[in-house]
């Protein structure tokens, strides 16, 4: 159908074609998969790569760097497609960016293995020695740290810095090509048990073929749509509000990450320097919009209030927590909530919002394609796991591809790609359910739930083995 249109319309622009096909779609109520499919015969002059990565975000670019670094895959030609123009580079002396990530140990190991960590170290990042999580309806709280603060819980790194570091590695790699301003128009994957190639066409008309197409193109992945996998997704009807904050004198070395569960969602402070922190505030769409528009002074007041305000207590739960603590022989002072440093300013234009949702693809692989990062799974930012899960996908995928290639499998052979999927599912699903569960658990003020969650949190705080289990999980060990 698309092909016919092209001929008649003497190559109308990609946009027009899409519009037309959309209209046809509406009329004929066929599925978009059939109209989106490239005609393979139409693109005889397509360039071939072994692996094409669709999407040059944090995860996609890191994947390209990791593929280039792997000695078994060193002879594979890789193409990285990114919709944005070329990265301008990162200025480590400039103002702090508002999008930051809490990077766990596993992800740092990955950066080290691809020689990107020294780049980050030479620029700027902040160690987090302790994490405190508490809530608004009771005194229940939990603190995570290593014994004697010997090791970091996580590192807070600006997303642009990570991207700059891995991008530099990719540019050095002889076997990776980067194509900027490249948006995927349509994708064609080999059908089951057919061994041929994956093909794709860009919006500017160029077409490529490859043995393996990797979808690193985010939550609205074009590659995933063509893979025809079931997707489970939820819209939380919440927005994340980010900002860069200036702290008062009481910040000390500012090495604690703070997170408080409020009735509308968690608000978190992630340290950037001794005097700067990054904010991630999840709340209802209306409140997020309102907060974003507030004058700076009022915004800072609202924020300080969010961390300190006494909300109506659930008395029963409060009592229960106290009883539990006394059972463990702790007095109240040991479990005093510490309060985060006072916020005294917000940097200009650093406030931004983004929607929050949950998404999980039923399968990450098919013949000729695989998904990584947000294209396969998207979680609430409350535990800082999203991008770390993406980086763990990268490690597993590169491992599986190298093992598969060294055993003579085709790169796109589902037979060995399925091993990547199994490893990832075993790791990702429990974490995703856990994070989603926390979000749900803390979205209510219903007394019995408050009671149970408070007891659960306090029990975890009081029982080191359980606490260590969670901590190791969150830190990716």
């Amino acid at each position: 159908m698309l092909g016919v249109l092209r001929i008649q319309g003497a190559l109308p622009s990609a946009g027009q074609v899409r519009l037309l096909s959309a209209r046809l779609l509406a009329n004929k109520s066929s599925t978009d998969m059939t109209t989106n499919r490239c005609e393979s015969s139409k693109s005889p002059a397509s360039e071939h790569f072994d692996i094409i990565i669709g999407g040059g975000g944090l995860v996609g670019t890191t994947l390209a760097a990791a593929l280039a670094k792997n000695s078994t895959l060193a002879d594979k030609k890789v193409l990285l497609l990114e919709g944005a123009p070329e990265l301008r580079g990162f200025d480590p002396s400039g103002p702090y960016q508002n999008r930051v990530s809490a990077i766990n140990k596993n992800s740092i190991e990955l950066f080290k293995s691809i020689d990107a960590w020294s780049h980050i170290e030479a620029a700027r990042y902040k160690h987090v020695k302790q994490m405190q999580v508490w809530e608004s309806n009771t005194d229940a709280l939990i603190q995570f740290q290593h014994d004697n603060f010997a090791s970091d819980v996580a590192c807070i790194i600006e997303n642009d810095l990570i991207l700059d570091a891995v991008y530099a590695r990719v540019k050095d790699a002889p076997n990776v090509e980067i194509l900027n301003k490249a948006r995927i128009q349509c994708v064609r994957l080999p059908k089951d048990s057919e061994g041929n190639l994956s093909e794709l066409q860009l919006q500017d008309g160029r077409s490529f073929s490859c043995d393996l197409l990797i979808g690193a193109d985010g939550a609205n992945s074009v590659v995933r749509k063509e893979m025809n996998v079931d997707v489970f997704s939820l819209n939380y009807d919440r927005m994340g509000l980010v900002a860069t904050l200036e702290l008062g004198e009481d910040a000390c070395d500012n090495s604690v990450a703070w997170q408080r569960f409020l009735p509308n969602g968690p608000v978190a402070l992630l340290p950037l320097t001794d005097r700067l922190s990054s904010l991630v505030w999840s709340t209802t769409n209306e409140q997020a919009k309102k907060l974003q528009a507030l004058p700076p002074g009022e915004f800072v007041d609202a924020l300080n209030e969010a961390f300190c305000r006494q909300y109506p207590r659930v008395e029963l739960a409060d009592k229960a927590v106290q009883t539990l603590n006394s059972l463990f022989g702790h007095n109240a002072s040991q479990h005093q909530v510490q309060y985060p440093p006072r916020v005294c300013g917000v940097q200009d234009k650093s406030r931004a919002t983004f929607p929050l949702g949950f998404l999980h693809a039923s399968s990450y692989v098919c013949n000729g394609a695989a998904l990584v990062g947000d294209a396969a799974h998207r979680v609430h930012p409350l535990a800082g796991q999203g991008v770390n899960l993406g980086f763990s996908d990268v490690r597993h995928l590169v491992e599986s591809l190298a093992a598969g290639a060294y055993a003579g499998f085709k790169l796109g052979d589902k037979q060995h790609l399925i091993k990547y999927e199994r490893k990832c599912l075993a790791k990702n699903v429990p974490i995703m359910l856990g994070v989603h569960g926390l979000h749900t658990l803390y979205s209510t003020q219903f007394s019995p739930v408050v009671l149970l969650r408070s007891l659960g949190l306090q029990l975890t705080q009081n029982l080191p083995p359980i606490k260590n289990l969670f901590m190791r999980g969150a830190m990716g060990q």
Partner: protein
Amino acid sequence: MLRNLVFASRGLRQSLAGILLRNSARSSSTATSLDAGTEKEVRHHENHASEWWNQNGTMGALHALNEIRVPFIRDGIVSRGTVEPGYVNTTKVLKGQHILEVGCGGGLLTEQLARLGAQVTGIDLGEKLIEAARDHLKCFSSELASNVLYKMEPVDQHAKANCEFYDGVIVSEVLEHVDDKVTLLEASVRALKPGGSIFITTLNKTIPSWFGGVILSEYVLNLVPKGTHHWDKMISPLDVQRILDTMNCQTVLVNGSTYDFWSNTWRWINNTQMCYALQAVKQPLSGSN
């Protein structure tokens, strides 16, 4: 024990027919006079020629077996020290190695070894199987065309023309379909260079492997066509070892394996009760002929 039985289930999915040697006409140059048993096995496998490359069909377990048998063969060859050190851990690891696959069927293993750089000759007695193998090579793996050669030829005939030529000879999932194992192995060994390795994978002759590989997979779970495996054709690793010993081949490795039908995966286990993979090295000294 019970657990073991269930685990085993599909035991070995059959494979390649072919290879069966004509007992009588060893000097003849045509491949027409197969004995009745061999003929039957070849036809049985030819009936599934079109299914061979379908990962989700009855050959699913054979596809999955590549996950462990390719690394077994690859590492077995690397361990002989004939691979250039620079090729280890690259996808050219088997470059320059000449490999004979006896009973290659549709070429599942053949192509994968060729993709590691090896020069592979696949022989089989099933015409339709060789045809399917050639078709697949042409349509889907044309880049391997210069590394793979398929021939419809009995192994004794091939060995005569290629005496002591190969670095490796593979008899994978074949022995359990052959009556005269000695003749087959003798011809395979003859094609092998001194110092080269013969790799064998098959299912053991034990109650668990019979129960899992025949009863469960053929008659209960219908994973494999009925009549694929027979008790009297199965052979234990010790017997294989004994036969190879008489041909001056020293067994260097025997690994046990089993098949998990629910996840379509093979894995190594620490006993050979179900299936096994064996590597033997042809000793350089003294005449094997």
